[in-house]
């Protein structure tokens, strides 16, 4: 079942001599529950692709359809609400709000909907992420790994169908990196979420269902490493 569909996606920056084609004619489909890793050299366009997929930046042309909704048909206001409810983000630089504690940072997406926070679920996440002891600490009082776990918690809170992670381990030591990736995989499985992740780390790519390589804004290879969770058997597509 398709969760994400990309059609003829193009993105160019600048004009004239400064014109940079960051993405060229990208087509892509991701199924529900897949763990997709996007790899590529720095400047290859992988981050731009992820931003497009997550509704953070507008493409020059082309469509991104998530859960059947063509997200760039939406205006800014609607797009923001879509991101809030359907998408989870994990960034390289954890990007926590420094004035809010762990619990509040995680609860933030719900608060923006003016929703009552589902306390049980919130506690479940905190428990799951092993942050119980640190619940009332400010981000500045946490280690890098802990901060990244908080941002994973935040991404999970609205039970999104898809999570985008942009080099989530780029700022972490190898031990923390492993913890974070395991956690991401574990929660994705637990809540039946699709996980799209950008990384340089070969070891992470190894543990993915599918690895997409990108070079100069084009997808150069798209490989299924092993059976996906749904048991799809397409190798070397």
């Amino acid at each position, binding site marked *: 079942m398709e969760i994400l569909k990309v059609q003829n996606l193009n993105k160019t920056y600048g004009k004239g001599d400064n014109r940079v084609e960051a993405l060229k004619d990208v087509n892509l489909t991701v199924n529900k529950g897949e763990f997709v890793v996007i790899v590529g050299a720095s400047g290859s366009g992988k981050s731009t692709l992820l931003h497009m997929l997550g509704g953070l*930046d507008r493409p020059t042309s082309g469509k991104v359809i998530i859960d059947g909704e063509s997200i760039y048909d939406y205006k800014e206001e609607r797009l923001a*609400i879509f*991101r*809030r409810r359907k998408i989870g*983000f994990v*960034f390289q630089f954890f990007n926590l709000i420094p004035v809010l504690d762990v619990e*509040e940072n995680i*609860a933030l997406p719900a608060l923006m909907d003016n929703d009552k926070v589902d306390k049980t679920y919130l506690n479940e996440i905190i428990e799951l992420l092993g942050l119980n002891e640190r619940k009332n600490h400010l981000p500045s009082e946490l280690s890098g790994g802990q901060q990244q776990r908080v941002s994973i918690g935040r991404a999970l809170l609205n039970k999104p169908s898809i999570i985008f992670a942009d080099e989530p381990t780029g700022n972490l030591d190898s031990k923390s990196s492993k913890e974070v990736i395991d956690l991401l995989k574990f929660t994705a499985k637990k809540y039946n979420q699709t996980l799209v992740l950008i990384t340089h780390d070969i070891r992470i790519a190894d543990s993915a269902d599918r690895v997409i390589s990108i070079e100069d804004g084009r997808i150069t290879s798209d490989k299924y490493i092993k059976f996906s969770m749904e048991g799809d058997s397409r190798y070397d597509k």
Partner: protein
Amino acid sequence: MISSYKQLTGRYLKANKKRSLLTIIGIVLSVALIATIGFFIVGMQQAQIEDIKNGYGSWHVSFSAPEEEIISKVVNNPKVLKSGMYQQGEQINIKKDLKLSPTIASGKALELLPMKIKEGRFPKEKNEVALEKWVLPYIGDNIKVGDNIKIQNREYTLTGILQDSVYTQSQKNGTMLLISDNIDRRKAALLAEVSPKTNLKNAVKELTSLTDKKITSINDKGQKIQIPSVVKNSLLIDMQGGGDRNSGLAQLYIPVGIIIGIVVVATIAVIYNAFQISVVERIKQFGLLRAIGTTPKQIRKIVLREATILTIIGIPLGILVGVAAICTIQYVFQVIGGDSVEWFKLSISPAVIIISIIVGVVSVYVSALIPAFLAGRISPLVAINSRTSIVKEKIKKKRFSIMGKIFKFEGALASKNIKRNRKRYRITVFSIVISVVLFITFKSFMDMTLNISDTLNESKNIHFLVQTNSSTFIDNNIIKNISTLNSIDKVYKVYKQYDFDQFIDKDKEIKAIKGIGSIYGRNTNINGQEKVLMNGSINVYDKAALQASKKYIQSGSIDIDKLNNENGVVVINKNQLLNDKTNKKYVGPIVGIKVGDEIELQYSGETSNTVTNNGQGITTRINPAQNKGKLNKVKVIAILKEDPFDFQGLQNGIKIITTEEMAKKLTGKNDIGVVALNIVTKNVKNEGASKAEIEKGIKSQPSLSLINYLDGNRKTKSTILMVKILVYGFIVVVSLIGSVNIINTLTTNIILRKKEFAALKAIGLTQKGLRKMIILEGLLYAIVGTIYGSIIACGLSYMIYSGMSGIREMIWPVPWDAMIIATIASLVISYLSVLSPLARINKENLIEAVREDY
């Protein structure tokens, strides 16, 4: 745990206590300043109204000899608060030289007349009476309120004592108030006061249109003329706001408008900067919020909530501070002025409070709106790409500049840094410009105001004046006697004023005032040179007066020997005169003269001034010279900026001071004698004793009289002092607002670049070098801001000058002193405001700062 995203606002404000506090201070100061100005204006208006009521009565419309129909229409008009009839009764002779003039009234007319009860109340019944205090001893001994008295064989009960009037005392004709039912309406007038609940202007219009009857009156020249029987109390109506556009109150609105305008601009600038900075500082946080799904509207809400919270705290505090300030001003004024000066009446007007709140709220929201929209438009990508904050800056390439040559590497870096981010550069320079403009404009406006108002000179320190009533001089022995009296501190001799034809070089004329016809006379050829004729006066000063004049020197020096030996004179180069054609007052220099310049003088006559006994009026006697004296060349050895003593003589010529010896030489007269003595006593409290001593001292010359200047001068001095307190108080507050602004911007400028500074340090810049660089940056901003600010401020100052010279004519003074103060102040404030964030950076761990998220 927070329960809504909106609570982020509160968290942020708490986390940035210092800046929140600065912003609140900005709001509080501005609102307080606006409220205080408002209270003050209303207070002044109240005092004026009181003054007018005391002088002219509290009636608005008066009908002379009204018809019965009009009386009933007026009395029964719901818009009329009080009304009543009054007429003058026949004079009553009490003693040989004392008369009483009864005012007979019905209804509430007595309350509407300009009579002030000092004790007791107005009469209400037929047999009741109120009298002036000074009259009482003529009626009987020890009369008190409530006593029964007899006037012309009629019994009255004294219900009230009126305040004494100088006029009635001098005429020996006392006021007497009576009540009567049978007033002859043909000889009486009907007074009406409009109720404060209705529109004054309309009510007055309605009342005055009741009749267009004319009555016969006799004018100054004794001719019979027809005048309308309806009269308005225009002064009172104008002051209460019922007048038309040309009324006194309307003129007051213009300067007040300018001042409030300046304050509002300053407030908006401070708050705008504060919000702009707080948004820029959190640009990554907003980006993140956007990334995880906060809508632009929600972001705007977060920023505007900040504005709301600051408003809720700042505005009530501002109003409180304003109330406290006006109470303090009232208290201080009372201490300084006592009862003698009352041009301000404490009143906490609700209208002023409401207007201040509205102005405050509007300025906060106006200034928060732009940053709020900016925050809403932040791209979510900002959050993800931590490099954006540096990469996105459009860095202007610049060669190593002068700064680099003078201040080495750090200077070069500083000069590159300040211009590299155009937005930040603009905000910082803008905030300094605003502060500088505020200060200079305000100060120059105030200086101009002070310039045209009374000046505080030595004449205001005089306690007594002894003068001759005849054309004789004061005996030298008497002068010696008085000078040696124990209670006397100083005695200045006053001479006659000697008038001269003055000839100056053509190029000494001031172009701007050539239009005032009475200054520069015909061109005259003197010893082959073309000169301009002016008519001026010379005041002769004794040693003590010349000594006291040294305080007022603008250039040159005062030396008695030099004056006598070199044909020297001292010039006061500030004249006050009226332009006959435009009817404007000119205050300023009359010739472009320098120390060392020469003036040709020709004696033309003498004038003596006599002060009347109550110290108010001055009689002048002019004796033109029989034949004009010979032409003398004198040299200017000093120029004074103000009159050391009130100048006696012509204001449309050069005001010259010289010694007795020089005066003899210039006039060719030997009898340059003393006509009056200005006396300063040692202890003002011993007024009575000093007075007695002086009186005894002058007894031997019966033509001498003594005039007490104590009260008059005390009043003038305290009034001037009050004006100065006000002016400088406002300048201080305005400077504070400006400083808050500069501190706010510069501090944030540094905090935002923590990471960059850490990187510089990491690659080997010492803390000392960093300090040098940052301080240089601050100073550079200050210099650029001051230059722009001074230019703009000069423009504004000139505009205000143009506005003011509608009433008075003067030469626009370039506000150099204000500019110098502003330059120094902005440099010092800039220096001080970078110190604290600098210390903060020094304390922080280098590695953490380099790695820090934002």
